[in-house]
């Protein structure tokens, strides 16, 4: 059990050093800016509440990812009934379309990614998010509870699916 002052310092350090990671997860799971801010506050609260329970059995970063992703998915479940259905192919229209990266601007690619990932199963969504964060298979396995081999197999299928969706935009 951390003493309150020490807990506050650890909490602030954690949030400052992981702010961007948490914000990216919030942006993925939230529909609007307000929603994003609410989710950020929820994740911060869960981190605060869980700090005492952190026993060091996992890396702190893995621990944070678990909290952020689980809170994000719960948040998504709550809000998805009011969300609009997503069509990942109905994004930008361009006349010249060679490689995918040149077809869309950075912002458009991020929007496309957000929408395309949401068409996957929840577990695959998480794996893709962790892949985009450049996490190793071992870390993904730690966060999800899947075996490393399954992480590899699932991720490969998910990436193939996204590549196909990207092809639909180019062609």
């Amino acid at each position, binding site marked *: 059990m951390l003493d309150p002052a020490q807990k506050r310092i650890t*909490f602030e350090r954690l949030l400052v050093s992981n702010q961007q990671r948490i914000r990216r997860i919030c942006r993925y799971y939230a529909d609007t800016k307000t929603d994003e801010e609410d989710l950020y506050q929820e994740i911060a609260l869960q981190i605060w509440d869980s700090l005492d329970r952190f026993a060091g059995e996992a890396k702190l970063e893995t621990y944070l990812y678990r909290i952020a992703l689980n809170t994000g998915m719960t948040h998504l479940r709550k809000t998805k009934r009011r969300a609009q259905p997503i069509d990942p192919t109905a994004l930008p229209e361009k006349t010249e379309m060679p490689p995918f990266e040149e077809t869309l601007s950075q912002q458009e690619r991020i929007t496309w990614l957000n929408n395309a990932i949401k068409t996957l199963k929840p577990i695959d969504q998480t794996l893709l998010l962790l892949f985009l964060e450049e996490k190793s298979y071992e870390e993904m396995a730690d966060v999800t*509870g*899947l075996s490393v081999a399954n992480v590899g197999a699932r991720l490969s299928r998910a*990436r193939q699916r996204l590549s196909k969706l990207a092809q639909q935009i180019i062609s």
Partner: protein
Amino acid sequence: MNWKTLQEDWQNSAEVSASAKIPSASQLNATREKMRFFEYDNGQQSALIGSICLGLLGIMAFMAFYLEPQKMMLLFIGGILSLSAFLQGIRFYFFRKWTQPQQDLKTYYSYALKKVRLARRTNWTIGAGLICWTGFVLWIAKDQFSSIFDPTVDARVLVVLFPFLLIVGLLVWYYRTQHPYQIPELEKELEKIVADFESD
């Protein structure tokens, strides 16, 4: 498709100002209150307090029945309240154990499913318990029906009891059909996800 570019895009996408906001203690408390009020998942402390209050009221009703054994309605109400307190207590214990977002996804989802099932079963158990207990009280009081429904003695209790049951019924209806979680639907959804995990 160049995944490296996408990874870079993704990682550069979150805008965090230099003065990154760290929630203060009061903001965290406000979030906690908001979640407790609006979310089905949370409010564990409220569940515990509710359970203790119901238990105390149940004990009081039993004590009142002990002092005035002819008032069978007190026995009836004591039983209902104690049953509710017991079930709330069980729910509190398991919800507390299962609502821990630091668990890995597989565990989190299987616990979420258990939680939803427990919520559904608790509702059914309360319903079944209510019927059984009513039957039991009516059976032991078959010779003194007048004391149960005596309008001069226990009418006030009935007046309180029926709106209470109505509210409980409305809450069950709300959670089943109107609340964003819609328990039966959520249960199916979670079953699919857990089966997906299990298939690996």
